[in-house]
């Protein structure tokens, strides 16, 4: 970024981001220092990419007009804790309206690729058209500025995410990597491809400890463009940390923001996995395709029960003190660590285990590992398989696919492999298409074509207004369980004011664990922007920018053909309420109808002109 002002909200055009546009068909590329249009452009991430996507009319995700935009946030690569994010944006192959148009989407992950990318001197890389042959893209720092090269990648074809990264590491020892797996390569039959981002831990241990930009099939879009991997080669630019940022970082580690995510050994809450224990108290842990049974089955995957048989180690991303990764390995007879299996986060763990009727940690870990290695979004895959299992349970004499049922590990594993290899489009294209083809959509747990996260929809009507996946782009998933809010006013306020601010993290380059409850409109972020970029910004300016970016996403959904009726939860939730969930019912037809009316009354007037 070239910054020639201290007031980015008033003078955004005095701030320039370095963009490289690559025509994959011709190999032509151009570099430009692009003046920012507004504060969203300055912050970056989807705040910028969605403005560019809005300028394009895209009717099919797999077309030349659909770009893949890779960018970072303003603070990515800075000394601020968690500032490691990379964003992948484009029109999604999996998320789309009933009108048949693809939705704009972004996905993000940590690891060290984002920082390395930023340190090359580039802020954004836009891929146009598609390459005729498989390539990988080398982005490197030179004395003359960032350079981009397209390299043949036939030797990477067919390799897993991890294997691609390991192969490239041999050639580029000082680089970091973003790679798709076989799922992304088989984009025709798999719309849920993810992008794996390398970590320091992975490159040192050679164990498959990637981070993932999973949602929305950005890995499949990358596969369509015939890009198998990105290599960011630059020197580490770890500057001396300022007193202001040091203070913020200490607050992030020790303050309320991340305390719940820290390892138990440091007095933390043990990561997102701990959600199992809490949600089970309400019988709100998804079981067998989001139908909790009011029993204790989910408890088998409580951490306390898993650590008897498996080795658990808390690890972190590069320079991050939050240590949120709960890495599960086999436990040797002497109690020492055996083979690394997978990382247990709440979402992938639940959706690839308990919600499939699997309650054994080793089996869960193997499914997560397979999913990661094939490069698939664990949420979309798990939920789509859960739908298929539910269909088979309801039609015991007319089962589909391999006839798998809840708890049948071997057959479920077979589905994961077939989907990952592009041999099972029924699963690979997601639950919206599968359920529509079978004529039973009520128990397909997606919203607007994107599978929901591992929070029961009965606890979160806010899913309907999430713009890029259920829980990471609308922070209402704890409003009922955590805050006990079951009244209409609280939900209207949550959706239209407070909880939408979670998307700010997907602009600025920080992980949500920086301060998940408050978003980026805080004094901590104001202090960081001053210290790292010499920018004077107010909390109000940040919040206004995040709100505009969110609303632009909503406007873009409507422009891509979504009707208001599609902003809804799966029909089963209200048609067949689950009596086992021990929480007030906030998803009755009456409540939802009132909520929709109030939310749209607030949002709709603000959508005017946002896409101009």
């Amino acid at each position: 970024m070239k910054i020639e002002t201290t007031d980015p909200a008033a003078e955004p055009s005095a701030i320039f981001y370095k963009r490289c546009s690559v025509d994959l068909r011709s190999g032509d590329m151009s570099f430009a220092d692009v003046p920012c249009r507004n504060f969203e452009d300055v912050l970056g991430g989807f705040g910028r990419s969605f403005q560019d996507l809005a300028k394009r009319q895209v009717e099919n995700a797999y077309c030349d007009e659909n770009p893949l935009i890779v960018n970072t946030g303003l603070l990515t690569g800075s000394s601020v804790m968690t500032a490691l994010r990379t964003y992948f944006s484009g029109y999604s192959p999996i998320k789309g309206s009933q009108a048949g148009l693809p939705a704009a989407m972004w996905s993000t992950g940590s690891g060290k690729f984002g920082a390395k990318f930023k340190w090359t001197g580039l802020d954004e890389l836009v891929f146009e058209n598609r390459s005729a042959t498989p390539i990988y893209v080398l982005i490197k720092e030179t004395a003359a500025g960032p350079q981009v090269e397209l390299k043949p990648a036939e030797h990477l074809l067919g390799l897993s995410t991890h294997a691609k990264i390991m192969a490239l590491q041999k050639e580029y020892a000082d680089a970091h990597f973003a790679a798709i797996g076989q799922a992304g390569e088989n984009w025709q039959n798999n719309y849920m491809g993810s992008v794996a981002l390398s970590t320091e831990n992975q490159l040192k241990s050679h164990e498959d400890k990637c981070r993932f930009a999973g949602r929305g099939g950005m890995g499949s879009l990358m596969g369509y463009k015939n890009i198998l991997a990105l290599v960011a080669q630059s020197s580490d630019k770890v500057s001396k940390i300022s007193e202001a940022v040091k203070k913020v970082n200490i607050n992030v580690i020790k303050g309320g923001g991340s305390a719940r995510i820290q390892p138990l050994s440091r007095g933390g809450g043990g990561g997102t996995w701990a959600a199992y224990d809490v949600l089970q108290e309400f019988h709100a842990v998804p079981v067998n395709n989001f139908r909790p049974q009011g029993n204790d089955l989910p408890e088998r995957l409580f951490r306390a029960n898993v650590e008897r048989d498996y080795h658990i180690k808390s690890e972190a991303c590069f320079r991050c003190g939050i240590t949120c990764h709960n890495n599960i390995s086999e436990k040797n007879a002497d109690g020492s660590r055996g083979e690394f299996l997978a990382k247990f986060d709440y979402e992938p763990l639940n959706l690839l285990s308990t919600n499939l009727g699997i309650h054994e940690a080793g089996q869960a870990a193997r499914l997560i590992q397979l999913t990661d290695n094939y490069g698939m979004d664990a949420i979309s895959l798990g939920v789509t398989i859960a739908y298929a299992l539910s269909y088979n349970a309801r039609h015991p004499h007319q089962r589909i696919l391999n006839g798998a049922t809840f708890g049948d590990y071997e057959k479920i594993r077979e589905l994961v492999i077939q989907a990952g290899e592009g041999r099972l489009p029924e699963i690979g294209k997601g639950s919206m298409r599968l359920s529509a083809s079978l004529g039973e959509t009520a128990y397909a747990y997606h919203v607007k074509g994107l599978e929901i996260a591992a929070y029961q929809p009965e606890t979160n009507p806010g899913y309907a207004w999430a713009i890029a996946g259920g829980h990471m782009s609308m922070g209402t998933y704890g409003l009922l369980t955590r805050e006990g809010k079951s009244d209409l006013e609280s939900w209207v306020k949550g959706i239209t004011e407070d909880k939408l601010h979670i998307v700010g993290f997907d602009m600025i380059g920080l992980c949500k664990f920086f301060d998940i409850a408050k978003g980026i409109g805080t004094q901590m972020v104001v202090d960081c922007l001053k210290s790292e970029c010499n920018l004077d910004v107010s909390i109000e300016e940040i919040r206004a920018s995040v709100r505009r970016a969110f609303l632009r996403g909503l406007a873009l959904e409507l422009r891509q053909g979504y009707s208001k009726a599609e902003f809804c939860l799966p029909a089963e939730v209200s048609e067949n309420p689950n009596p086992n969930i021990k929480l007030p019912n906030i998803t009755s037809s009456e409540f939802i109808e009132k909520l929709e009316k109030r939310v749209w009354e607030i949002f709709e007037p603000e959508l005017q002109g946002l896409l101009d």
Partner: protein
Amino acid sequence: MIINVKLVGLFQTGRFKQQDREYPIGIKVQDVIDDLQLPQQHFGIVLINGVHADINTLVTAGDHVVIMPVVDGG
């Protein structure tokens, strides 16, 4: 008075899962948290007889109090 206290997740470590405990009349949830020396930064949710409450809620004889850490996903 006797109240039944259930602890969830990390709060069980070094304490108990569920126990009948005796407290003086007039105590609040915060007094139970203090008595059990639960780490304040992890306090998230309290239910009294299945209904969300807060640290200032009065606890009465025979209540079932569930104390949970805060939860966030990703």
